[in-house]
């Protein structure tokens, strides 16, 4: 923590970066994103187990970018987001400096190559809890699964917290907001909710960095992240490509192999 604060002071003092996107104390023992722009505020920065949100979301926000070069306190998933955003031409090397928190240690990563290198050592496995849930679901009968999601998505109020918290949902206009045609009904109701979450999953297949921030963001506690995780895993299983692996674009859903193996097309 001190190391981080020191590094932040140094960077801001030297003007290397104009803002440090990091975690600060939130209500109770929660953590919230803070944007440190002055050396004297560097003390507000916190790193501990409670810091779980993927802050990469802010890297694409116009108002943040307007500040100038950004340093960001980065979890492994944040690093993946940075690479994926780079691959999608949303981030340039000179825009961002990653302060990576990898198992306790703090590492300053200035280049995408450095990030890729650092990630190489990090296993990209899901949390046991999530993996268990996915396994549990896949083990269910299709009817049970339908029931499960009907119940879960039935609670969705379409607040779009999942979308806003997702580092990859940076589109200025989302399919959701598209009204000619109105692909997804605005009102929150069963079918629309299902369609909405399907769209998110499909759009994140091959791009999801598996941070799970969307799930954490959901005010009514729907495990929406499972959908994107599942889609991502499906891509990985079938095509061996994964989101956030490299700053060079390798998007499974707009590439193909003539011998992609499938079993269901007659």
């Amino acid at each position, binding site marked *: 923590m001190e190391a981080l604060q020191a590094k932040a002071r140094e960077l801001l003092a030297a003007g290397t970066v104009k803002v440090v996107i990091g975690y600060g104390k939130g209500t109770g023992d929660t953590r919230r994103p803070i944007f440190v722009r002055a050396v004297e505020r560097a003390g507000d920065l916190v790193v501990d187990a409670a810091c779980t949100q993927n802050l990469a979301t802010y890297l694409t926000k116009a108002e943040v970018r307007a500040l100038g070069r950004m340093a960001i306190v980065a979890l492994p998933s944040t690093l993946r987001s940075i690479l994926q955003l780079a691959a999608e031409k949303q981030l340039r090397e000179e825009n961002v400096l990653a302060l990576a928190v990898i198992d306790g240690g703090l590492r300053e990563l200035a280049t995408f190559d450095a990030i890729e290198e650092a990630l190489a050592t990090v296993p990209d496995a899901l949390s046991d809890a999530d993996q268990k849930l996915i396994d549990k*679901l*896949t083990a269910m009968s*299709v*009817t*049970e*699964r*339908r*029931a*499960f*999601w*009907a119940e879960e998505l039935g609670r969705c109020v379409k607040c779009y917290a999942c979308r806003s918290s997702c580092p990859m949902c940076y589109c200025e206009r989302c*399919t959701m907001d598209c009204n000619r045609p*109105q*692909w997804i*009904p605005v*009102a929150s*109701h*069963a*079918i*629309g909710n*299902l*369609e909405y*979450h*399907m*769209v998110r*999953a*499909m759009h994140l*297949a*091959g791009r999801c960095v598996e941070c799970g921030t969307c799930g954490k963001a959901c005010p009514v506690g729907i495990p929406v992240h499972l*959908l994107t995780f*599942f*889609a991502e895993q*499906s*891509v990985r299983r*079938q*095509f061996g490509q994964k989101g956030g692996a490299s700053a060079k674009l390798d998007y*499974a*859903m*707009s*590439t*193909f*192999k*003539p011998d*992609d193996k*499938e079993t*269901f*097309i*007659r």
Partner: protein
Amino acid sequence: MVDPFEPKMTAFVCNWCTYAGADLTGTSRIKYQSNVRVIRLPCTGRIDFMMVLKAFSRGSDGVIISGCHPNDCHYTSGNYHARRRWMVFRDLLDFVGIDLRRVTFSWVSAAEGAKWAELVNEATNNVRALGPYKEIQQLAAVGID
């Protein structure tokens, strides 16, 4: 006395192979069940997964998706991209509890008029056996647009 259930089938096909194949079914006067409504698109690559979702939310009991065989795509690779999309989309449909027996994927070339007829009949019969897709229609019934 209620009428026996007749499924609503929606088909998304590419213009160059399957649509042409279905034309051939016609010119060769091969009969098949009239439940299916065909939506013609230039290429399977154009078939947005949103369309399939919409088909269901609009009350289709079954969906057929068909295009050129691999290697025969009029646009050289549209069907390869489509295939990938379906491979993931189908996984996902299953994951959210959509009954995959209601979604039929196929390659039907411009020469396979007979195959088209078989495909439609088989898919229609399967769905007829499954009955109306209440689960989704109930969701939809809550009211859209």
